[in-house]
Each structure stands twice: as C-alpha cells, then as structure tokens.
C-alpha cells in the first residue's frame, strides 16, 4: 500500500520524505485547501523546491485543492489547479464538481483524485466521478467498515485511499456545518474548521476552559487530556449528564489492522495532519513505514507506539471495525 503523508511546511515535507513517505500531499497558502491555518502551507516557490527535494528521492507530491470555490472567486481555485499542473505535482486532490470539470477540460492529462471532502461513499457516486471527470482515485470518508470497503473495491473502476492515522471527523465530511454555525467559517468554504482566531482558552484554577466563538466547548479538569477545540469534540450536557455526545477526543490509528486493509483492496493509506509539526510527521510516517515493511516481510507489527501523538492520548480503529456496535 502507498503511504500518503501530510506536510504543512517545507520542513515537514522534508521530514515526511526522509521518514519514508511514498507520497507527500500539500496545499497552497490560501483558502483553496482544507487546512488553511495561519502560517501554514506552501508558496508556489516553496512547493517547487519541495517537489524537487521529493523527486530526487523517488517520492511523489500531491496537491490538495479541496475546498469549494466561492461564487465570483473561482479564479483563485483555477489558478491553484493551473499552478499545480505547471509545477508538476503527480496528482491534484479535488472535491468541487465545477473545479473537477475545469481540471478535466483544461488539463486532460492531469491525474485527478477525489478528496474526502466530496464525501463519495457509494458505488454510484464514485462511478459518476470517474465517468464524468476521469477521477482515478477516491479518498474514502471515514464511515465505511472493512467489509463495505471490500465490496466497494469490487464494484468501482478506481483506486481507493483510506485514512490511517490522525484526527477524526464527525463522518459527514464536506457537509459539516458545525464550525460555520459557531464562527461563520467552515472547512468546506474557508479551509478551516474551528478557525484559530475564534478559539480561546481560559485557565481557571486547575481547569482549562476551551471556547469557540461564544460557545463553551469543554472544561478540562486538572488530570484530563485535551482535544481539538471543535464542536464535534465538545462535551455537552444532556439529561443532566455531561459527556461527549458526538465524538470522544481521540485519533484514528489503523496500525493493528493494516493487513486487513490490504486484504480488502485499499491502494493507499493517508496520514492526516498537515496542521501538525514536523516532529509528529517524522514519528508517525516512520512508524507506518516500519509497520508496512514488517508486514511485507511477514513479520508482526508493534501497536500503540504513537499514543503520545494522538488527540486525548487515545486511539481508535473508528468505523473500520465499529467497535461500538
């Protein structure tokens, strides 16, 4: 399986390449990608240097251009696609059908991948994207079980890429409006979930209060681990009990089920985390490289080595195994 790794900065790209990535995916420093955080992402020159660094080491670079263009501002997204092609990325990761149509018409030879933001999770939807736009790979939303991925792979003419490690989503990718509701900005349109300018942490004695806009999301006790300040990871009161109604603060980690993912026909494993530091990228990529190499050599894989990197310091195999059912 191909190991697809994140990079939010040139140093992270080098760290991913050096740690054993097969592919590094990046975004431009604007609203065209779903990790539009302050100080993050690549200028055109930085991406050109990054591609050169990766290519000399046999590693590919993909560009994520996976937000939805705003009316009258399509030219920003069109320019990102044009620049990605002229810089020579091996694939462009897209979600919007207008932008997919633009890329198909303007750059018929470009390799197009369907972003998880498109939320294509059934045979008809994926066949549509392949037929209409020539999409060659689909990044699957984190809603499918291993069995469902197997059935999908038998019925579709494109490669599948699945999330292997990192932050979890509420599994309505590309359709989630929680951040928009609270802040007016969303990953879909602005490339940012819970924009940092709207996040505030207040220290009250031994507790930490996290707020998004005007909403209190969580109150962490002295001994509790902290999660991302997103509404889906918030702790809310219902029937007089406070709890994680949507999702626990936890990270995906499929190290334990890598052989099963290979067996159901997955082509590529995606590590989430372009917003994370190069220390995270080096350790996570290296751990997955080792795991994949050991599996290829018929050896056992060590699990649980990345728990210190996970949100809430805990991991899950998510929908792949559906342990909650």
């Amino acid at each position, binding site marked *: 399986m191909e190991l697809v790794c994140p990079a*939010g*900065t*040139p*140093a*992270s790209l*080098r760290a991913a390449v050096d740690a054993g990535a097969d592919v590094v995916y990046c975004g431009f420093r604007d609203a065209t990608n779903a990790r539009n*955080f*302050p*100080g*993050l992402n690549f200028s055109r020159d930085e991406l050109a240097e990054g591609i050169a660094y990766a290519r000399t080491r046999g590693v590919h670079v993909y560009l994520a251009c996976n937000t939805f263009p705003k009316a009258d501002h399509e030219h920003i997204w069109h320019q990102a696609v044009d620049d990605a092609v002229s810089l020579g990325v091996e694939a462009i990761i897209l979600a919007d059908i207008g932008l997919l149509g633009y890329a198909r018409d303007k750059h018929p030879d470009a390799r197009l991948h369907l972003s998880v933001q498109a939320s294509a999770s059934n045979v008809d939807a994926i066949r549509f994207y392949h037929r209409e736009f020539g999409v060659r790979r689909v990044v699957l939303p984190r809603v499918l079980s291993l069995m469902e991925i197997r059935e999908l792979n038998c019925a579709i003419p494109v490669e599948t890429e699945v999330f292997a490690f990192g932050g979890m989503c509420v599994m309505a990718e590309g359709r989630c409006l929680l951040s928009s509701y609270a802040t007016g900005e969303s990953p879909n349109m602005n490339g940012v979930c819970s*924009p*940092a*300018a709207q*996040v*505030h*942490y*207040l*220290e*009250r*004695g*031994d507790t*930490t209060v996290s707020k998004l806009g005007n*909403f*209190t*999301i*969580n*109150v*962490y006790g002295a001994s509790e*681990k*902290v*999660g991302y*300040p997103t509404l889906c990871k*918030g*702790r*809310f*009161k*219902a*029937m007089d009990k*406070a709890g994680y*109604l949507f999702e626990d603060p936890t990270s995906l980690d499929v190290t334990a089920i890598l052989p099963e993912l290979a067996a159901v026909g997955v082509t590529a494993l995606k590590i989430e985390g372009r*917003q*994370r*530091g*190069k*220390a*995270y990228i080096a*350790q996570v990529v290296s751990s997955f490289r080792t795991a994949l190499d050991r599996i290829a050599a018929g050896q056992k894989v060590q699990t649980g080595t990345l728990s*210190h*990197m*996970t*949100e*809430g*310091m805990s991991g899950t195999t998510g929908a792949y195994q559906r342990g909650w059912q």
Partner: protein
Amino acid sequence: MSVQRPAFTPFLVISPLLRALPGPAIDAVLAHALHQMQQRHPAVFDRLSGETNPSVLISPTDMQLDLYLNLDAARPVLRRAHPADVTQAAARILGPMPALLELLEGKSDGDALFFSRTLKIEGRTDLVVALRNALDGEDIDLRAAIISSAGVLGPVARRMLALAEKAYGALDRDMAHVAGALAGDQDRRMAGMASSLADLDQRMRTVEQGIKRRQPAALRREQAAMPASSGLQS
C-alpha cells in the same frame, strides 16, 4: 486566572543563577539571539508578516523569568518581560523550558504537548498557531547557531556547550530520582483512590441496572421515548 506550579526540570535550579546576572546583559544576549534568527530564518518573519501585533509573552514555568517576543520584521524584540507586557502582548505561552526549546527546534509536536497539557496558551490562539507553524517550517538548530555566532571562538563554544550539556544531563537524571522519591507515596495513595473510585462506579452501575429492571416495562418505554434536552455546557 491560572494556577501555575513550577515544572520540576533542571531549569528550576539554573534559573536563580540566570536571574542573578545583570538584566541588561541578559537582554543583550536575547537581542543578539533574535538578530541571528532573523538573519538565518527570514521565512519565520515572512510567514508572520500579515499579523498585527505579533507579540507573545513566553512564560517558562520552571524559570520565574518571562520573556517578551515581538516578531514584527521591521522592529523585532526579544527581552525580559516588563509588567506592562502582560496586558500588551497579544498572547501568552506557558510551559517548561525544555519543552519550549524542543518546540523551537521542531523536536516536539506542539499539538501533542498541548493535548498532554504540557503547554498552555492564553490570548490570541491564531497568533500562537501562526508562530508555531512559522517556527516549525524552519530547521532551527540552537547548538549550531550558538557555535556559529561565537565566530573564531566557535571551537571553544563547542567545548563549553558539550560540558554544559553533560552537566545538564546529570542534573536532569538526579532530579528525576528526587522526583521519583518524592512522588512515590503520593502515587501509591492516588492509585488506591482511583481503585476505590472504580469500585464505587461499578457498584453504582449495578444498583442503577437493578432499579431499571424493577421498573414496569411501560415506564421504561416512556423514558426511552422522551426527547433528550441538550444544551451547551457552560
């Protein structure tokens, strides 16, 4: 209002020695370090160029010495913090000095340090995120920077650094022993309390299940059908 207890690191011991040095001398060293950083890593300043008031108060929890950092490329500042900086800085980062240095060099992941509550932030989160990303985008090597800035005295600086690192390592190990000895009794007591709590929790569940089983089926169905009243915790 936050409660900050000093982190138990070698900087707790080194800090009084540093604070005994003349203040202007400390400020001169800090200003030189920032100048070196601007020379070597201009991209850090470029990535923050869109920020208004990119000023941060850095509070090592093991040093009793706060630093004021302003990364405005035209007038960058790094010095000991003044009392007025507490209100003027746009954000504040609190954490043990070893963790802050590892973060500066990209050896630790900021999110992981935050999840584990090793680091805390106050004020403008977007500025702290931008600063973290800008620093992480560079390959900052403090050791190389110190040796290089010593000029012709580089080899001497290298030897002094090696000695300092050795002394730091020994102090770190000794302090870990002391911390282990001090925390031993408390750890055992906490483990005992956690075990009692888990036991109580289990007994409570058993009692709740027993009560539910004794309720008439019609009442159980009625309760299950009731809409959950939800609201944001505040």
